[in-house]
C-alpha cells in the first residue's frame, strides 16, 4: 500500500495517533493479491463441501453390489466404486474428514508446541533437557511414527488425529523456542525485567504475542502435512475404519481396478492434492504477510 507524503504529515499532526493492528493490516493487504484470493475461495469451496456433504450427496456408505463400477449417472455424479457406493458422496465426505484432521492437528500441535517451546526458551537447564527429547523425537521419521502409533492404538478418528499430531509437536517447539530466545534479547524485554515484570506477566505480555504470527504460519503447514499424512495412513490401511470415508481410503480401494477405472483414483487424488496445494500456498502467503521485517515496513 503506497503511503503519500501528505498521509505521513497528517498522521504526525494528529493529536491522537490511530492505533492499528499491524498483524490485521498485513493480513488484509495480503488478501488483496489475486492468488491469495483464488486459494482462499478454493478453500472455502472445500469447507462448503465438508459442511454440505450430507445435504448435497447421498449415503456414502450404502453398498449396492448390483450397481458396482458404474459410469457417472444422474444418481451418482461420479459413478460408483467396486461395492456400488456413490463416489461423489464419498469424495464429499472425504473433504469433511480431511479438513477435520487438518484443523485438529494444527490446534493439537500448536497448543503443546507453544507451551513446551516457551518453557524451553525461558528455562535454561530444563530447556536443554527438553530440547534433547525433542531432538530424539525428530530423529524418528514422522510418517513412520504416525503409522506405528495409529497401528498400535485403537483404530478411529481420534487415534488418527493424535498419531499425526505427536510427530508435528517437535517442529512447533523448535520454532517457538527460537522466537522466545530472540525476543528475550530485545531491549524492551530487558526494560520490562528491570522494572520488576516477572514470570507469568513477562510471558503473557511480552513473549507470547511475538509467537502468534510464526505459530499461525507453522500451524497452516502442519495442517497441510497432516492432510497428506492422514491420506497416507488411510491408504496404507491404518487410518479410519471403512465407515468414515477418506480420500486415502478411496485410493486404496481403487488400486485393484486402477488400470481399467482410473477415474476412481483421479477424483480423490485431485481433490486431495488441490486441498494440500491451496493450504500450502496460503501458508506461504501468510508467512510473507506476517514477516516482521515486511510488517515493519508497512506500518
Amino acid at each position, binding site marked *: 500500500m503506497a503511503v503519500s507524503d501528505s498521509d505521513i504529515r497528517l498522521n504526525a499532526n494528529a493529536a491522537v495517533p490511530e492505533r492499528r493492528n499491524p498483524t490485521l493490516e498485513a493480513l488484509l493487504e495480503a488478501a488483496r493479491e489475486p492468488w491469495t484470493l483464488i486459494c482462499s475461495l478454493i478453500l472455502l469451496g472445500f469447507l462448503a463441501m465438508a459442511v454440505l456433504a450430507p445435504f448435497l450427496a447421498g449415503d456414502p456408505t450404502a453398498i449396492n453390489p448390483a450397481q458396482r463400477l458404474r459410469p457417472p449417472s444422474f444418481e451418482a455424479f461420479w459413478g460408483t466404486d467396486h461395492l456400488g457406493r456413490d463416489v461423489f458422496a464419498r469424495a464429499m465426505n472425504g473433504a469433511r474428514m480431511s479438513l477435520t484432521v487438518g484443523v485438529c492437528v494444527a490446534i493439537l500441535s500448536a497448543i503443546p508446541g507453544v507451551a513446551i517451546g516457551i518453557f524451553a526458551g525461558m528455562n535454561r537447564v530444563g530447556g536443554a533437557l527438553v530440547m534433547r527429547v525433542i531432538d530424539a523425537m525428530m*530423529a524418528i521419521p514422522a*510418517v513412520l511414527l504416525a503409522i506405528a502409533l495409529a497401528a*498400535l492404538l485403537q483404530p478411529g478418528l481420534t487415534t488418527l488425529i493424535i498419531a499425526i499430531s505427536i510427530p508435528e509437536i517437535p517442529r512447533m517447539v523448535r520454532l517457538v523456542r527460537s522466537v522466545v530466545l530472540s525476543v528475550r534479547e530485545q531491549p524492551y524485554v530487558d526494560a520490562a525485567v528491570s522494572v520488576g515484570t516477572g514470570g507469568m506477566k513477562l510471558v503473557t505480555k511480552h513473549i507470547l504475542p511475538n509467537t502468534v504470527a510464526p505459530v499461525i504460519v507453522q500451524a497452516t503447514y502442519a495442517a497441510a502435512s497432516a492432510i497428506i499424512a492422514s491420506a497416507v495412513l488411510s*491408504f*496404507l490401511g*491404518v487410518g479410519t475404519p471403512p465407515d468414515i470415508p477418506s480420500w486415502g481410503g478411496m485410493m486404496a480401494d481403487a488400486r485393484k481396478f486402477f488400470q481399467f477405472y482410473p477415474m476412481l483414483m483421479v477424483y480423490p487424488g485431485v481433490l486431495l492434492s488441490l486441498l*494440500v496445494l491451496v493450504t500450502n500456498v496460503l501458508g506461504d502467503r501468510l508467512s510473507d504477510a506476517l514477516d516482521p521485517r515486511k510488517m515493519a515496513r508497512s506500518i
Partner: protein
Amino acid sequence: MIRYAAARVLAGIPTLLLVSVFIFSLAHITPGDPAILLAGDNATPSQVAEIRSRLHLDLPLVQQFGIWLGNALRFDLGNSIYSGKPVTELIAQRIEPTLVLSFVTLLLTVLVAVPLGAVSAWKANSIIDRISMGIAVAGFSIPVFVIAYLLVYLFAVKLRLFPVQGYKWLADGWIATLNSVTLPAIALAFVFSALIARVTRASVLEALGENYIRTAHAKGLGAPRILFVHALRSVGVPVITVIGIGFATLVGGVVVTESVFNIPGIGRLTVDAVTRRDYPVIQGVILFFSVALIFINLLVDLSYAFIDPRIRG
C-alpha cells in the same frame, strides 16, 4: 578435524538412547497384553504365562528395557510374531531394494533440483522462476502415491515403457534393477526435489548479492561460471543440511512408494508388519530408520567440515 568428528559422534549417543526409549515404549502403549496377542486365540493360561516369562514381560519395565537394549546392541531385535524369523534377518533380506531406491532418488534429486534452484535464483521473478517454483510447491503438496499412480498410468499402462510394479534384484543384472526402480524413484524425487530446489534458490539468491559475485562479474566471468562455480560453492552447507532434513520425509515416501510399486524393501516390511500388528518388526524397522537418519545427519555434519574449512577449528 578428528576432534570435531569425535564431538559429533558423541553428541549422537544420547539422542540414540532416547530414541530407543521411545521405540521400546511403543510396544507398551498398545492396548492389551502382548503375551496374549503372541499366544494366539487358542492359548491356555499356562502357555500365556510361559510366553510372558520367556519374553521377560513379568519383569519391571526398566529391567525389560535394559534387556531389550542389550539385545538390540547385539543386533538381536527379537522375532517376528507372524513368521517367527529374527527381525534383523528380515531387515537384512530387504535392505537392497530400499538402498537402491533411495540412492537413485537422491541422485535424480541432486541432478534436477540444484541446477533448477540455481537457475531460478539467477532469473529471479522471471517466467522460468515462477514456473519452477510453482512446480516446487506442487511437489510437496501432491502426495507421493498420487504422483506414483499418475506416472504408472502414463508410462507403464499407456506407454508401456516401464513395469507397472515389482523389483528386479541386482543379482539378476543392474539394468533390469534400474528399469524397475525408475518410476518409483521419479515419484519420490518429485517430492524431494521440491524441498531442495526451494532451499537452493533462496541460498543462491542470497549469495548472488555478495561482493565476491560482483568481483567475479567485474573480472568478466560468464554467467554459468559465476553461478555454478562461485555462487553454488557457498550454498553447499544449507543445501546439504536440507538434504539431511529431507531424508526424514524421504523415509515416509519410501514406505508409501514401495507399497504402491510392490517393491519388497524395508518400507514394504513396515506396512506388512503394521497390518499384522507385528510389533517386534515395527519396533525393529523404526529403530533401523532412526539409526539410519541419525547416521545420515552425522555424515551431513561431517561434510560441513569438508565444504567449509572454518567449521573444522
